[in-house]
């Protein structure tokens, strides 16, 4: 496709390649009032992918409880925000990078960590803790060793370089993940409660500014890939892998926080999946404005890039901002200091349309709201998971002694020590780590105070498999307990819903059940959902993963003089069991 060939004929095959079904394409024609050009088709394709549009999950996510007195921002922004007292806020979210990590474990995991950190610092928060929830195939599956070591190195490679301690996580092994591992990364940030940044664009005529790394041909169609089932050929889709540059992200973090200390930013959004497309559409849609983008002004890494590629590239370490008018030079000076690209690439308009300009020509012209807000929403058919039979413990004969059984348990990959993993993560940088990995939840001190933030990730997929509602509840309850066990008051959760193909009613039923269970537990515990992420189509050759709604919980310890750790402190201590 040459640079200004906007007239590539739109064939049914091309539409299909872009992951749009017939109904969806009909809707495209209706919205456009004409046939889209290739750039526009590409934009519909990524905006309406499962990954960006949440079309299968939206209906159910809306049922989750999201409110409490301490919730400043619930789901819908880059990350959730809760009040932690003293004018401070905790900003956090969890996000999956499952498919890219299976294809290239190091880079997939690394860019997953980079992405979630951007989600948090876009909101004006300095990341202060990372966690991750990992699921691999069986320990002796030929791929597991390679995937595990690559993922762990990737998480460490990015997080360590950023100087954010990785303080916890969880790791499981099960055959259902043999061909589809799960890599969920969570970041907790700290912000001033009165200086949170949002993504809604405002101010007709205000400049739209691009900062960070240059755009290359990375991960084009990554977002659509993340929503497509795997088959044995998918290892061939490799060149879409993005390479992370944590050094640049560290500079981007410092530069953004420096700019955020001024009052120059009107709105800001990181460029994650579907890059410039989703960031610009989301900002415009939330603000009810239009945008004119001058794509030829986008900093480019390679020659001959097309508008299509620029709109769909998933190059990492980039941000889109709307600035107050006249601030361009002062803002640029900050990015110059940090040696990052800075370019004014457009302007806000009152048209509620996205107009893409390419050296003066119109390369695309789309209405914003129908793409962003009125994307397809499905009420997919679902069936509940049949109840399991109750097993009578008397009916099982003890084949081995208690000691043998205990040894087997301790040696099992699911229970073995995870030290090998977390020793590869810098869990001490920033000098505020109070409870290190290896306990129930990690705890970091809020710099300069005697207050701590506790964070944990939890889920037991086989419980969810057996009974999605109860399993969903249990995951929330476990997160709650892990926080309490450090002395923290649990405040809110983020969730990462990893499931198989939602077009299968049984799997959709798992999703619906888990949402119900999570919702019930959250209400019972006053532990609302403030952010989250959905990853569907996690299956290989038609076999789905175990349903895995990973829960990331956050709580606050008001006085670190009274925190608790897992170790037994004295050898004459009495052990007491409490609870049901």
């Amino acid at each position: 496709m040459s640079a200004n060939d906007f007239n590539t004929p739109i064939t049914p095959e091309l539409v299909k390649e872009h992951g749009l079904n017939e109904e969806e394409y009909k809707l495209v024609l209706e919205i456009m009032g004409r046939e889209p050009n290739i750039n526009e088709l590409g934009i519909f394709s990524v905006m309406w992918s499962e990954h960006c549009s949440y079309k299968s999950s939206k209906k159910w996510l809306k049922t989750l409880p999201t409110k409490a007195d301490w919730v400043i921002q619930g789901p819908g922004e880059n990350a959730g925000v809760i009040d932690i007292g003293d004018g401070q806020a905790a900003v956090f979210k969890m996000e999956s990078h499952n498919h890219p990590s299976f294809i290239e474990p190091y880079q997939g995991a690394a860019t997953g960590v980079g992405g979630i950190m951007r989600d948090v610092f876009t909101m004006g928060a300095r990341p202060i803790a990372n966690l991750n929830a990992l699921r691999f195939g069986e320990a002796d599956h030929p791929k597991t060793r390679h995937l595990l070591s690559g993922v762990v190195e990737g998480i460490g490679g990015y997080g360590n370089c950023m100087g954010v301690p990785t303080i916890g996580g969880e790791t499981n092994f099960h055959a259902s993940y043999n061909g589809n591992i799960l890599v969920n990364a969570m970041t907790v940030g700290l912000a001033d409660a009165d200086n949170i940044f949002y993504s809604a664009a405002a101010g007709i005529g205000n400049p739209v500014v691009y900062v960070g790394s240059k755009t290359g041909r990375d991960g084009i169609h990554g977002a659509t890939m993340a929503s497509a089932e795997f088959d044995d050929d998918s290892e061939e889709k490799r060149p879409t892998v993005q390479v992370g540059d944590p050094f640049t992200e560290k500079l981007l973090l410092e530069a953004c926080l420096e700019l955020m200390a001024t009052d120059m930013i009107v709105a800001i959004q990181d460029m994650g999946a579907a890059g410039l497309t989703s960031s610009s559409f989301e900002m415009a849609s939330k603000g009810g404005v239009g945008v004119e983008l001058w794509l030829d002004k986008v900093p480019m890494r390679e020659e001959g890039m097309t508008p299509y590629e620029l709109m769909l590239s998933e190059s990492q370490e980039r941000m889109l901002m709307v600035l107050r008018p006249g601030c361009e030079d002062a803002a640029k000076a900050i990015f110059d200091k940090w040696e990052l690209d800075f370019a004014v690439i457009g302007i806000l308009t009152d048209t509620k349309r996205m107009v893409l300009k390419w050296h003066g020509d119109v390369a695309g012209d789309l209405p914003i709201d129908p793409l962003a807000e009125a994307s397809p929403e499905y009420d997919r058919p679902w069936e509940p998971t049949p109840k399991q039979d109750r097993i009578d413990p008397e009916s099982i004969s003890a084949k081995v002694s208690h000691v043998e059984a205990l040894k087997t348990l301790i040696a099992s990959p699911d229970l073995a020590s995870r030290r090998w993993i977390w020793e590869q993560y810098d869990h001490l940088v920033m000098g505020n780590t109070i409870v290190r990995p290896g306990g129930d939840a990690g705890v970091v001190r809020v710099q300069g105070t005697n207050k701590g933030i506790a964070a944990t990730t939890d889920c037991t997929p086989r419980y969810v498999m057996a009974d999605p509602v109860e399993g969903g509840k249990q995951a929330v309850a476990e997160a709650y307990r892990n926080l309490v066990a450090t002395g923290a008051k649990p405040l809110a959760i983020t969730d990462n819903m990893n499931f198989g193909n939602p077009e299968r009613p049984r799997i959709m039923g798992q999703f619906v059940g888990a949402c119900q269970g999570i919702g019930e537990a959250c209400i019972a515990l006053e532990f609302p959902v403030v952010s989250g992420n959905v990853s569907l189509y996690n299956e290989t050759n038609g076999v789905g993963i175990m349903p895995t709604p990973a829960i990331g919980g956050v709580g606050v310890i008001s006085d670190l003089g009274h925190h608790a750790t897992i170790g037994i402190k004295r050898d004459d201590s009495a052990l007491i069991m409490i609870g049901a």
Partner: protein
Amino acid sequence: MKARVHVTLKNGVLDPQGKAVHHALQGLGFDGVNDVRQGKFIELELDGTDAAKAEAEVKEMCEKLLANTVIEDYSIELA
């Protein structure tokens, strides 16, 4: 026998190291540099004298371990 293997990033793949080195060279006043790419260079000492066999074996090593063919290309020279 000796094998020399070059492992380089595929075209179009971001090279953060090359980028940083380029920048540092500019900082040191080397203005005439237009691009820098950083790769790996691996030297192997091999048993045997059959070049064709060695080449096939090194190729297998590259595919299995030395190169990450998702993002890297490799080339082999025997000496």
